[in-house]
Each structure stands twice: as C-alpha cells, then as structure tokens.
C-alpha cells in the first residue's frame, strides 16, 4: 500500500473507502484507464479492419481533356468498410490453415456435423437452405472449425473491445480477450510465425497487467465479474 493510501485510510478510518476512491490511487487509476483504452482500441479497430475492402477509383484518366477510351482510372484505391468485405482470417492465412490437420475438428465430430447436414436433406426446420444463411454450404465444405473461427473472430474482437472500453464485466472481458489472443498465438505457432507470436506475447502481458489493475477501474457500466 502506498503512503498516499495509508494517509487516506488514517483520515477516513475505512479501508474499503480507500479501495473505492480513485483519487487515493490516482496513478493506478490512470494506469488502469490507459491500459483499458489501449486494449479496447486495439481490439475494436482490429475487429473493424476485418470489414475493410478496397474499391478502385471510377475517375477516368483524361487524355487531351477527354476521358480515355481504354478504361484507365485514377490510381487511387478507396478503402471502405462493409459487411460484404468481412474476412475474419485473412485469405492467405486461411488457405494455409485449411491444410493444417490440427485446424480441424476431430474426424468423428466433423463427419457427424456433415452427416447431420446431409441427413436433413439440405434443409433446416423444413426450410430450403436457400432461405437459410447463404454461406452454409461453403461453411460445411471447408474445415468446419476454421470456418467457425473465421466467423467469430471479427465480431468477438468488436464485442470484447467495447465491453472493455465501457467497463462491462471488465475482468471477464479481459480474460476472454486473453483467451482470444491465445487462440491467435496457437494459429501462428502452427504456421511458424515467430514474430507474430512475440507480438501477441506483449498483448498478453498488457492484458495480465490490466487484470491486476482492474480493482482500480472506474467509470464502469457493470463492475461485477
């Protein structure tokens, strides 16, 4: 306990008051806040970038003041966010992971899922799959576990980023974010990306520090958990 907090306790005669009063641990409070914002921004923006695509400019190149007839357009790519651009695992990595045997569900489970899909005749609740999620068939054709991960990664980063930012069940959110980074680390171990593993290791240290400082968190929507 710091000198500052000891003095506080003397004056208020209440240890509980000291713990809940951010001003008595201003340094810790700021540290917790900064870590919280950093981790939240990191997760939210990373999640958002999963929805990024680029579209080329439609502006034609002018030759002698007139649009060229060859279809050349201005050399600028416009970055845009859209649900249709979603890619949880970048395409290049996805292809690498798809050939990894450990990236699959145990054979019987994957077969079971596929057989279940076949047994219902391509229907869910009696409805033709054309009316169900459009990518379901592709989903079942690819390694199921990888597909699930691909589907969940972006939204998970966004949700956890926002819960950490707004202080909703901060400890659990941080713990889940840690698990998510562990899963990313595991993937990078599979494809021998040592630099990325070290990078994620730093994130893990920050999460652990944030958990240790969680008791100094203020401005939380849900302090429980």
């Amino acid at each position, binding site marked *: 306990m710091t000198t500052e907090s000891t003095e506080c306790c003397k004056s208020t005669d209440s240890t509980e008051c000291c713990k809940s009063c951010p001003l008595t641990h201003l340094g810790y409070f700021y540290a917790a806040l900064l870590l919280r914002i950093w981790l939240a921004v990191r997760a939210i923006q990373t999640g958002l970038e999963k929805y990024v695509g680029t579209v*080329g400019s439609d502006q034609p190149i002018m030759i002698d003041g007139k649009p060229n007839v060859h279809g050349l357009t*201005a050399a600028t790519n416009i970055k845009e966010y859209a649900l249709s651009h979603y890619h949880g695992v970048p395409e290049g990595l996805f292809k690498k992971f798809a050939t990894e045997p450990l990236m699959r569900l145990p054979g019987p489970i994957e077969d079971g899922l596929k057989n279940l899909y076949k047994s219902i005749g391509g229907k869910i609740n009696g409805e033709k799959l054309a009316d169900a999620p459009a990518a379901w068939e592709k989903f079942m*054709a690819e390694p199921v576990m990888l597909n699930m991960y691909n589907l969940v990664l972006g939204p998970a980063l966004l949700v956890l980023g926002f819960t950490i930012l707004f202080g909703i069940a901060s400890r659990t959110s941080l713990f889940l974010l840690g698990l998510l980074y562990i899963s990313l680390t595991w993937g990078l171990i599979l494809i021998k990306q040592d630099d990325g593993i070290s990078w994620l290791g730093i994130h893990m240290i920050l999460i652990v520090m944030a958990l240790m400082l969680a008791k100094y968190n203020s401005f939380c929507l849900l302090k429980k958990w």
Partner: protein
Amino acid sequence: MINRRDFLAKTAAGAGAGLVLGTPGLLSAASASSPSNKLNVALIGHGKQGQVLWESMKNIPGLHFQAVCDIWEYNRKAAAGHVRALQKHTPKDYENIDDLLANEKGLDAAVIATPDFWHSPHTVKCLEAGLNVYCEKMMSNTIDGARAMVKAMEKSGKLCQIGHQRRSNPRYRFTLDQLINGNKICGQIVNANAQWNRAIKSSQNIAYAPKLTIKQDILTKYGFKDMHQFMNWRFFRDLSGGAISDLGAHQIDIFNWFLGAVPKSVYATGGNSYFKQREHFDNVMALFDYDTPQGQVRAFYQVLTTTSSGGGYWESFMGTEGTIKISENSASTEIFKEASPAPKDPNEPQPDKIVPLSWDHLVQRGFLGRKAAPVEAPPAAGGVVDARVSKPPEGFSLPGELNKPPHQPHLENFFASVRGEAKLNCDARHAFLSEAPIYWVNPSALSQQPIVFTKEHLDV
C-alpha cells in the same frame, strides 16, 4: 522462318479480318440464348485458378451460374457455396463434364479452369455441345491439343477466348495503342526482356489435408497417379508444360502482341537446379529472335522458381528512345526516357550540340505521369569507369490504373462478345499463333539446340 507478311496472312486467313495478334477479327457470337440477355454459365474446374476467375466473374452483371463441375468434392462444394452466396441459388454440381453437358440445358458458356492437359478435351467437348468457351491459358499441354481447340472453335462457329488476360487489361492496351504505336515513345524497339522470378517458398508443393484425399479410382479415371499429382500437376510433363508455359506463356504472349510478330527462332536452356525430383525444369531461360516491321528484336525471357531476385514479374520493351517496363503489378511498372533522341541514320555523326529529348508535351496531355528526377551516381572512388557511361534515364509512369481484379476485363470482353456486343480480344486462333513458339522452348532446352521455326512448328 516466319516473317510479318506470312504472319499477317495466317492471321487474316484464319480469323477473317485479323490485324496482327492484337486485334482478333473473329466475329462476336449472336445474342445469348436466354431471355433478357442473361447468360447461363457452367464453371468447369474450381481449383485455385477457377477461384481466381470466380473473384472476377462475381462482379460481372447478367451472369447466371447454372452448374459447376470438378472431380474434387471439396472444390465442388466450394463452388456451390460461392454461387449460392452470390445468387441465392444452388447450382447443380457434377464430377464429370459429360454428365453436365448431357443434363444441363440452355447453357450459353463454359468457363474452363481445369489442369492444362484437360483444357483441350474439355474445350472441344463444350464447343461441340454448342457452348461458347473461356479457357485458361496455356491452351493445352501439347501443341496438338491446342490445334484441336482452334479447329473445334472454327468448326463449331462458337467463341473460344483463351485466358491471356493482359490482352484486355486497360493498362496494357493503353501502353500498346497510345505509347508504343501512337506516340512511339520507345523509338525503335530493339530488345525485349521479361521475367517471372519466384522464391523457393512460393514454389513449394501444394499440400492437402489427407482426410480430403480423392478416392484412387476417381483420380485414375481422370488421369492422375495420386493425390499429390492431382494437387501438383504443374510439375509433371504429361499434365503440363511446366513453368515456361505456366508462367511464361502470359509474358511471351506480350512479346508477340506488342511486337506484332511471332519469333523466327528460340534457343533455351533450363535445368533442375533445386527441385531435382520434379519432371519439369525449375529454371528456364529462353532467347527469341524476331523480325519486326521496325527491324530485328531479340527477346530474353526467364522463369526462375528458386529466387525472388529481380522484382517478380514484368515485361520490358527497350527502344532507342525509351523503355517501357510493364507488369500486371503496377508497382513494377516503369517508363524511362533516354536523354537524347536517336539520330535517324545510325551512321550520322553526333551533332555538336545534342538536343535533349522531351516528353513534357506527353505529360501535359495526360499520356504519362512524371516521376522524381533520377539521381546521378557519384563517380567511383578510383575515377571514371568508362568515358561513355550513360546518364540515368528519366522516369515516368503510366497515368492510370485498372480498378478491377486483373482477370475481370478479359472475362467481361468474353461475355460481351457472347452477347454480340464486342469482339474477342484473344480467340483461340490468335492465342495459338502466340502460344505456338512456347511449345518449343522445352524441346530446345532439352536438346540444348536452337530451333528455327518452320510452318510445321507454328501452323494449325
């Protein structure tokens, strides 16, 4: 020996009104059979290249993907998923193309992206069934297979576009029409050079999950010894032309298209320098000699699958006044201007005062972009190396970009031609004229002898 006149004559004879390699004269097809100009398309082969084509086709309006075909269930399901996601309709999927052609009615076109040794049989079947065909390059793993495709196209009267997609790329068309032919910025093109260099890491065998292995009887039925061969057919002599056709075909086609001629000879060398177990050479270098309307041109091509040195893939046309280095990758595209114009007569003495060559007017009109001025290297510490060292050439850039996936314009050209709204940019006959010399690179390298082309080498 093939000169320009013979070449033009062949082109014209075969295509009706051909104008060298760049402007196929084969007429476009009649309107699509389906109402509202919607085109019913079958996807034949949905492996890596099939999926590359898909990424372009999904952006083209008016296409209805009716059926898919691939011998691998994994690819078939992926294709079906892609189609379903796009058009909310599950296409019928087939393992065998004969079943597809027998059962599917109302098809307008087939897009073929199967292994090279299946290109010709699949294309011929589709043309005979009355479909218009877009087939990936190389036309076939054998020159006879390619010949059969040209004959089938002309007999059927249907369209057959070969996937030399640079032929429809606005950047390439602009460069040829406006810079080389229109403004003649290269002066006299005297040499050409192209390469596709790829690191060992990118040239590895393609792996697969053992669980997804195709049953042996299916592999055997379709000409594959085993799953490894199915995944890596590009490395086997009976299934593919190897790196020179796999990668080189695109770029040697650009030599022929831009120079407006086919080579009169080739001398090649190659070997298995690193991938010693592969049937095809991992490194090939080839020299082509051309007689063009402007004079002799030598073109050097190398495909190296063991190094990324030299900046990937590009084609360079070196003239007396300028050089255009172009690539599908715009980062590798550069244009250089010589410091002074070439005298009309090479024997003419150099004038006392050399007038600098200027492209300012081309920049002002929008034909070129300007790059930063070149930095002249300081003289070597020991003094001048050679009194005749040239000044570094001034750099320029292409003024624009292609804002679509690189295969999309070529596919758009194909489907527009099927609708009767355009003419093919690379029909099978023109593709054959350009590809025929490539079939002789490996024989030259194997025999370590130059091959001087005759009619027998290059004729359909």
